[in-house]
């Protein structure tokens, strides 16, 4: 039997924050700016409040199922078949998301720094440390993450405040951007920017104290909300939203504006280095979840050996895309039409069903 690693609240907050910050790095601000225009900052506040309310509901329901993740809850609600369906959906979700991340980052690095390197080499270089970190287990991932995350958070903060010289406040106008409907009604689809919530649904069994779940959820969602807001706000003030739409890494655009005298040149490389660490941690966390879900579905005893086929699948999946434009298009589709229903429709339905059954059993 494999030993289950238990995480403290700080380690868990670090991991969930990594997932959320990783999304900010991966061009989510770009998609939001595209859909809402100059009212993107209002849109973020709006969806941020909705996300916090969503977390509140999730915490209340999960309270009744301590030390259980959503797959266990699905088993309780609908039996083994339902558990298998939910498990497969989430496994594919994490796998596809990992593939997108690796492929996107490798292709972006190819364009920015390694124009003569074949993309297959870059993808392989990404897969290798992820594989090793995931093999060592959750404790190792969280420990490594805890070393990097303060620097990553600091780097993003420096980025926001370092670019303050270029702020033009007139760019916030018109305040309602592309319109009220686009900001508040169609803008609801931008809830995918809190996609990291999917990782919260599985963290419960790995907590040292299951009472910490509420605290962890709130702190991580608030941190990610602050960072997302800062990212959107700075991008909006520094560039016209049409300019920032065309970029591959919207935050990378901000790093190019930074200048710390003549001594430090190409500061952007430091930021990219830190973001690479963040991507490694994020993807290995996703790999770990996939292995654990697979273990739950198939009742195998040791999940670590799964990392080899999983790495092979991820590697092949990342090679499917021809160029960064195709990844960008498919990622956008994935965010809006696949991840959003899974996190904000399927998961609450499972939890509500389980809750109803729980109440029924209690009455009976």
């Amino acid at each position, binding site marked *: 039997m494999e030993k289950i690693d238990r995480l403290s609240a700080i380690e868990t907050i670090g991991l969930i924050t990594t997932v959320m910050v990783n999304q900010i790095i991966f061009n989510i601000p770009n998609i939001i700016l595209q859909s809402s225009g100059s009212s993107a900052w209002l849109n973020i506040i709006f969806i941020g409040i909705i996300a916090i309310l969503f977390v509140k509901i999730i915490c209340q329901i999960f309270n009744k199922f301590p030390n259980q993740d959503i797959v266990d809850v699905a088993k309780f609600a609908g039996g083994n078949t339902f558990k298998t369906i939910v498990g497969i959906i989430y496994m594919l979700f994490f796998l596809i998301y990992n593939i997108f991340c690796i492929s996107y980052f490798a292709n972006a690095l190819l364009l920015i720094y390694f124009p003569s390197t074949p993309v297959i080499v870059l993808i392989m270089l990404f897969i290798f*440390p992820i594989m090793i970190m995931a093999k060592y*287990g959750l404790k190792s991932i969280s420990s*490594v993450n805890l*070393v990097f995350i303060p620097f990553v958070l600091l780097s993003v903060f420096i980025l926001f405040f370092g670019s303050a010289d270029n702020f033009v406040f007139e760019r916030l106008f018109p305040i309602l951007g592309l319109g009220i409907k686009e900001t508040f009604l169609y803008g609801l689809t931008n809830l995918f920017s809190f996609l990291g919530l999917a990782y919260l649904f599985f963290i419960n069994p790995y907590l040292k104290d299951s009472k910490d779940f509420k605290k962890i959820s709130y702190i991580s969602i608030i941190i990610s909300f602050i960072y997302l807001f800062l990212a959107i706000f700075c991008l909006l003030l520094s560039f016209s939203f049409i300019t920032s739409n065309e970029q591959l890494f919207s935050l990378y655009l901000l790093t190019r504006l930074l200048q710390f005298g003549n001594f430090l040149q190409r500061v952007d490389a430091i930021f990219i*280095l830190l973001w690479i*660490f963040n991507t490694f941690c994020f993807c290995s966390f996703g790999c770990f979840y996939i292995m654990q879900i697979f273990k739950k579905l198939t009742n195998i005893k040791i999940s670590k050996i799964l990392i080899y086929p999983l790495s092979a699948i991820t590697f092949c999946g990342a090679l499917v895309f021809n160029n960064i434009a195709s990844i960008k298009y498919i990622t956008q589709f994935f965010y809006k039409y696949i991840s959003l229903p899974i996190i904000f429709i399927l998961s609450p339905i499972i939890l509500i069903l389980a809750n109803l059954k729980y109440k029924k059993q209690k009455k009976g």
Partner: protein
Amino acid sequence: MLGDAAVSANIVSPVLIIIVAFTGICSFSIPDFSLSFTLRIFKFLYIFLGYLFGFLGIAIGISIQLSILSNLHSFGVPYLSPYTPISNSDSNTSFFQNPIWKREYRADFLNTKRPMEAAHISRKWKFNNKKE
């Protein structure tokens, strides 16, 4: 002098000289003499990784090395503690420490039988005065 000459001759950039000097000074902070041998080997490894894949190679090296280090235990105590796993701040061993009167616990990574090191309220006079 040598550095000046190398920069004037355009062999190396001024930043490189500063980084080399900085690395040299940092190497004096290694507490154990024999540890510097290990670090030298790692230095070569990182130079090789940097030469092959640039900063991506260095990132890979650091990530793998950190994940190996975080798995190491010495007499049951994690190698990277108290930084990771983070230690309780109310002990004497944590990275960020509480005021001395609040440090009533032993470090949690030691897994001691009795977690308390001191009595619960160290500054009893303060609380006694309040009651009066």
